[in-house]
């Protein structure tokens, strides 16, 4: 369970203070697929960063399973992310010298799995994504869609509590965007909690719930599926 309580975020440039989030409150139950929608500059990505501990809110709290994680230090937050979160970013950002498999198993190694175990776990997911052939390919040898799928595999290989996706389809064409959304829906069907920021309504509506943000405030909170 994620509980967002009165979260605000201000950015200060010189003497100018920009209030990006203006008191956000909501809860995400375990296993929910929630999309966050909104126009550019609405604050949706900023909200995702506060929830995923990549940034600290100016005020308010992010409580996950009863723990206020917004108070964690930087190194504690890194450890927390390793154990509990997976990330998919706008572009895949795979390490160019690492093969698809190596990119995917790196977080597992850091978490304590030995190489053989991390490899086994990663290959299993590559197989379920139909990407067995590409495990030894370098990112430069993969298409954009394949790269983004590898970044999803990297995010879920440790079975995170929450998968955060920040505009995961932004750099993909329609067909590949659909493929990626199908992959995320499949993960959700298996019980994965997913919080996805997107500006594409079509994909936002594939989630269980759609949170619309405008000018730093929740405009609509719509349950799409029960």
């Amino acid at each position, binding site marked *: 369970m994620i509980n967002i309580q009165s979260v605000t975020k201000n950015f200060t440039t010189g003497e100018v203070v920009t209030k990006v989030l203006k008191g956000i409150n909501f809860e995400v139950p375990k296993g929910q697929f929630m999309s966050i929608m909104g126009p550019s500059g609405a604050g949706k990505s900023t909200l995702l960063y506060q929830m995923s501990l*990549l940034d600290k809110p100016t005020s308010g709290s992010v409580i996950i399973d009863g723990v206020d994680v917004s108070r964690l230090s930087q190194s504690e937050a890194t450890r927390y992310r390793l*154990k509990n979160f997976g990330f998919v*970013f706008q572009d895949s*950002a795979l390490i160019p010298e690492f093969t698809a498999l190596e990119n995917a198993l*790196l977080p597992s*190694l850091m978490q304590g799995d030995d190489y053989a175990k991390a490899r086994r776990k990663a290959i299993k997911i590559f197989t379920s994504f139909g990407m067995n052939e590409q495990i030894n390919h370098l990112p430069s040898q993969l298409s954009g869609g394949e790269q983004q799928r590898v970044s999803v595999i990297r995010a879920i290989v440790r079975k995170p509590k929450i998968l955060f996706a920040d505009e995961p389809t932004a750099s993909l064409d329609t067909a590949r965007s659909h493929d990626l959304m199908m992959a995320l829906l499949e993960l959700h069907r298996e019980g994965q909690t997913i919080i996805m920021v997107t500006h594409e309504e079509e994909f936002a509506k594939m989630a269980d719930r759609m949170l619309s943000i405008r000018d730093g405030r929740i405009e609509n909170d719509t349950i799409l599926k029960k």
Partner: protein
Amino acid sequence: MMQNKLNNAVLTTRTAFFIAAKSIRRGSLAVKIVTVFILLLTFLNLLVVGGLLNGITNDVGAKVKTSLSGDVYIKPNKGHTYIQNTGDILSILDRTTGVHFSPRLTSGATIEYGDATAEQKPARINTVVAGVDPALESQVTTITKRVVSGAFLGADEINSIVLGSSLVDGYTTSETSNGETLGSVVVGDKVRIRFPTNSSPQEFTVVGILNSKSAVVDQRAFINQATLSKLLRTGSGDYSEIAIVAGDDKAASALIQELRAAPDAGKNNVKSADEAIPSAIADVQKAFGMIGNIVGVTALLVGIVTIFVIVFVSASSRRRYLGILKAQGISAPTLVLSYILQIVFYVLVGVALGLVVLFAILQPFFVSHPISLPMADGQLFLPVQYVTTRIVILFVVSIISAFIPAWLIIRQNTLDAILGR
């Protein structure tokens, strides 16, 4: 708690090793070559110039030892013309096994060459004349073998003299302290020696010219000890110096201790071979050591800056990837350590190549082509401790110069790194 920290350290190291290994294996070949090449040059710069200067100073010291002092060198202390209590000293030397010694008599003198004419005076030089026993001398020093023209003194040659190469023209570029020589003296020529205690000049025939490459020795003239003793009217047991060969350093130390404990030892100056090096030469050795260190530090600075720039550029260009890895939970120390491990690998390769270049190419080259200087033959002198110290310095400095830029980039805010802010 402790166990947790240990586990974290193991995970950090293992993951860093994984990242470093992959980065090295698949990183840009050009960057790898440049990095290794720079580290190789830094390593060679750290060792070659210093090693050559060491080789020169070492050879200067060795030449003083093999041509003048031996392992132990006894001189009278200030206020005494001759060594005191020679009876006890010679008795210690006689009963110590494996010891050879050459007692010498020395005196300041003026040597003249050529006849006075209306146009010019004879060439004249003030120097030290040493009276030696050629048989004993040959057991202690190599000067009897360092004759470059003619031959060394025979045991019974009363009026023969061997001149050091610095006293004559044509054998060396080193000079006497005032830059004067006797001129173009050749074997067979006659020279006259005037001693302060004996105003009438004595004529000697030059039988040999000696070039030991030790400035002190090459500025001396040598005659038979019996002749000099007679001219100076010294008594039996009056010696100005005793050069002793003890066999090895341990035996030399033991002998020095024994000699220093002998009766009236305070009146004599018992020196080791190192202590016997004349202060001017010791100053040159210190200066050479300093020059070697300055060159080494300069090389090290260039290496540090280069490693810093390479790591800084590499980490800066990967700032976003590093941010993504941190977002995934890869800790900052893991990423910093991965950079350090990469540099450690490149230093290892650079040092390994450097050792090959040093010991398989440069050292054999300088053995067969030593740098010929008036006072020594310059070779690469690279004692194990000297090399290992510099390897350790290079590793430590490289690690620091990789750590700083990596830490500067990696410690930046994760989100800023991801968003490229």
